[in-house]
């Protein structure tokens, strides 16, 4: 184990992006993710990359748009209020089918909120956030190792589907240090020569745009293409993890930080003779609906654990068709549920 590194989640995201071949980062400071721009400011020049501290989150996401259009692997990062500001750009990126990786280390909201870790941006990340019919691939890491692995994976997914991929973490896992092994580059390459802006030399012009004034001939066609792409992503890219679900009576569901709590609670409950298992969506979009329905079949009760008001419950109920009672343990405003609270709640189910 001593061959592992001890690194902070936020810094790991920076290094993993570099491993993935990202050489352009544009960002704007906001706690609790300031380690990412600081890391990039120091590291990018060492690897021949570009770091720009933009004048705002709005400018940063549009620099991302320009760099992505130019064919680069590009990333920006922020936290909840800053991600709200980026929504316009995310909609444009999606419409222009540009690959980009966006990190959201969520903090307490709404409004300016606070700087503690939270999960209140689930709806924003998975249901839209900006205008129009588009989706992001949303990856929710729970450990520092996963932050590294999923960041590397995010760049491949973005390029493969020409889509925006969001790493949805929270302030706590961004600040947390854990042992990890840095991932290796995947070695995958993606040919962007058919659309990227490189100067129209010896070829027709390339145009990156989303203004498509003719509803039937242009914009609906783009939308149909996007929806087909989202179907393909749903078919191919769902990620989830389970823990002791097979014989469980009670299914605990959480993403990111809360999946750690769910898993820990399962261990405690099993020792007390209660059969609890955990289901954890890793891709929040596409949501592992069929997989959850299968894992939940025959269970007595589902307990959703979140650091918000219960935003994921909607997706859970859609997945299981409201066939099993769903309970909820959650904290808001930057609070984290305690393991004991989760354990005690499950114990009430048998009383």
């Amino acid at each position, binding site marked *: 184990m001593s061959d592992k590194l001890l690194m902070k989640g936020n810094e790991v995201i920076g290094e993993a992006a570099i491993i993935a071949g990202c050489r352009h980062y544009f960002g704007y400071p906001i706690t609790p993710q300031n380690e990412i721009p600081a890391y990039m400011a120091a590291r990018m020049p060492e690897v021949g990359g570009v770091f720009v501290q933009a004048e705002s989150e709005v400018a940063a996401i*549009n620099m991302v*748009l320009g*760099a992505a259009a130019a064919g680069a692997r590009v990333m920006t990062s922020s936290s909840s209020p800053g991600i709200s500001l980026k929504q316009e750009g995310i909609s444009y990126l999606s419409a222009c089918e540009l690959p980009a990786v966006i990190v959201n280390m969520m903090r307490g909201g709404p409004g300016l909120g606070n700087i503690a870790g939270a999960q209140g941006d689930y709806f924003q990340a998975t249901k839209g956030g900006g205008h129009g019919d588009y989706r992001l691939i949303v990856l929710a890491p729970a450990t520092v190792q996963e932050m590294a692995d999923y960041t590397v994976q995010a760049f491949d997914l973005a390029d493969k589907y020409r889509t925006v991929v969001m790493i949805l973490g929270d302030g706590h896992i961004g600040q947390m240090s854990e042992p990890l092994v840095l991932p290796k580059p995947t070695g995958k390459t993606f040919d962007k020569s058919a659309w990227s*802006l490189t*100067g129209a030399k010896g070829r027709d012009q390339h145009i990156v*745009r989303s203004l498509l004034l003719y509803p039937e001939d242009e914009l609906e066609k783009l939308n149909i293409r996007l929806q087909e792409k989202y179907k393909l992503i749903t078919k191919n890219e769902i990620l989830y993890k389970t823990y002791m679900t097979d014989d469980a009576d009670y299914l605990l569901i959480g993403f990111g930080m809360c999946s750690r709590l769910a898993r820990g609670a399962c261990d405690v409950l099993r020792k007390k003779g209660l059969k609890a298992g955990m289901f954890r969506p890793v891709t929040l979009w596409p949501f592992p609906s069929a997989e959850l329905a299968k894992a939940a079949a025959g269970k007595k009760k589902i307990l959703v654990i979140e650091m918000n008001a219960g935003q994921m419950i909607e997706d859970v109920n859609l997945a299981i068709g409201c066939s099993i009672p769903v309970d909820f343990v959650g904290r808001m405003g930057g609070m984290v549920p305690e393991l004991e609270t989760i354990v005690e709640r499950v114990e009430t189910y048998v009383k």
Partner: protein
Amino acid sequence: MSSNTRIKEQLIMKRPDSMFEMKNHYCPGCGHGIIHNMLGECIDELGVQENTILVAPVGCAVMAFLYFKMDGCEAPHGRVPAVATGIKRVHPDKIVLAYQGDGDLLAIGMAETIHAANRGENITVIFVNNANYGMTGGQMAPTTLPGQRTKTTPKGRNTSTEGFPIKACELINTLEAPVFIERCSVHNVPNIRKTKRALKKALENQIEKRGYSFVEVLSMCPTNWGMQPVDGTKWLEESMIPAFPLGNFRDRGAE
């Protein structure tokens, strides 16, 4: 060649090679077409057509890239300098043009304008100032003149509640980084020629990696000004030029 009696034909003006042969969508008397043409001539003369990427704004010039045989990118409203920054940082050897109107550059995109200039991004910003929002039907712009009637200043711009026209060149001239700042106009031939010279210098600066160049072009919008095209050129000369004096503010290119 054999006959000396034949009248010699001399081509004095043609469509630039870097532009597509097509009609543009601009209104009669609009300045955009002239500015596009001057830009196209400069690109031809400098031989950079295959190396240039044009970033178009939200506004009347939203589809400007359709007229040029070059790569083009659309930017969200006001974000042209940020998008141009992203492209330029990926391709430092390409020529990146930021083409913007007055609402885009001075209202919604003021922050991006100032900070791209302040970073000294090696791009060329072409700012078309026609004192109103053209595409949305003639609302007040940051450059609308005091007393000027628009859709949203029906009784004329009231400076006590709506402020004064913002002078882009003067504003950018307070920054250290820009290398070239000039205000021109396209209301008559001598000024069109000056505009072309300014555009060419601004492009040369970028080619030579000197840094940020800013060319403001006063331009006619007779449709939204409620005038005939010819009257538009007069109104520009008589009303706009006094408010936005023409001239070069900075030229470090030659230094």
